[in-house]
């Protein structure tokens, strides 16, 4: 397993581990009623997606820099944008799950889904944030 494989997988593994930990060690707690939590997570998801869209614009603004040209020439710019897209999709998924939660009955399946999506979205966001800062330091 290469460091790239670990980098690709760790946010999703983190989500799974968090769900397992939440279920096994904490007994799967979830607020009831959960409207405040869902509203807050929907707001957070919106902020994350908004920031990531701005980050994409920032990356495009440094497209003329030596460091960006180099990472493009060696083939990692696509991976960087893939990571950015994954973070945006999961942020959108968190927003969607939060909205759905307002309409469905509470249950273990939905709670587990929310925990997984929120922790994975946060991990994906942290991953791309670290990479963007590394890139901007050299731009």
């Amino acid at each position: 397993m290469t460091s790239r494989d670990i980098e690709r997988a760790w946010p999703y593994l983190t989500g799974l581990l968090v769900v397992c930990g939440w279920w096994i060690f904490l007994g799967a707690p979830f607020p009831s009623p959960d409207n405040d939590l869902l509203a807050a997570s929907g707001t957070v998801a919106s902020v994350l997606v908004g920031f990531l869209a701005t980050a994409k614009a920032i990356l495009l603004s440094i497209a003329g820099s030596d460091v960006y040209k180099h990472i493009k020439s060696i083939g990692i710019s696509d991976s960087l944008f893939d990571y950015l897209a994954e973070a945006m999709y999961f942020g959108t998924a968190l927003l969607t799950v939060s909205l759905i939660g307002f309409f469905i009955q509470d249950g273990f399946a939905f709670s587990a889904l929310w925990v997984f999506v929120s922790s994975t979205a946060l991990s994906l966001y942290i991953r791309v944030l670290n990479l963007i800062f590394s890139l901007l330091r050299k731009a």
Partner: protein
Amino acid sequence: MARMKMYAFRIEQAGPRSISEIAQNLADRDFADRVPPTGDRVLRLEQMLEGNGLLYLDFAQARSGHGPGRMPRERAMEEFDLAPDESFGEDTAMVVNPATGYAAIQYNHYGPRASAIEKYLSLTDFHLAAAGGGALDFGFTFGHVLRPGAYDRVGRLGLYKQVDFTIALPGARAADVEAGSSVGELLRAPLPQGTEILKITVQASAERNSSLARDGVMGMVDQLGRMTGNLKRAVVTGRDEETGAKETIDLLDEVVSSEAEITPGRGNRYARPERWQALARALQGWRERNELPEAGT
């Protein structure tokens, strides 16, 4: 007549495939397929020949940026008509003695340098290793060859006062991407070659008779000598223990090299056969003058 500079290199092979095998693999491909898919630049093997126990290679690199023009003596400069799939190219010839591992490489200021050729062959070797499955042993190292006298001169210094060296950090490479390095690791790596420079000075204490350890200095000299174009400066400063005379040895001045006179031919270029002959003569000359340490030393 013009003068062509040539440098000696010692090639170390890290994987099971020799340069001859890599070159033959490349030569069997169409030209368009000789450029690595994720290479840093458009660099390819132009031609290979084997004979007289030597391997003759020529590598070409597309020239980027502002290109040359045609300059008639009595008219204004004109552009060349290049087809859409054409570019200006610069080539560098290389002759390898597979038996000894030594090579003579042409110095072409605008063409691929030894370090670029090293990366190109290593990347090709990597792809072959990956395609074949099994262990990922691959790559070549092109090391400068220092004149045997250089080692002797350094070894004779009684007191080693200082070792200075400057290395251009190679930065993240396409081969690192193919080998599975994470994006984070690659972004933390130095910028492209020549952009980040590492300068190191190892200095003995200020006392008159202080000295760096001899074994350490000779070890550094040996390692620095193995570096290719990444090594920008390497200077050993010492003092004769008896006379106290200070001596400074610039190792890059001690790199084994030669020059050959070549008559530019068609297109004002050095013809490939002439370049190969000059390189082969240089290799033989260095060997006859015992400027190439025995393999394994």
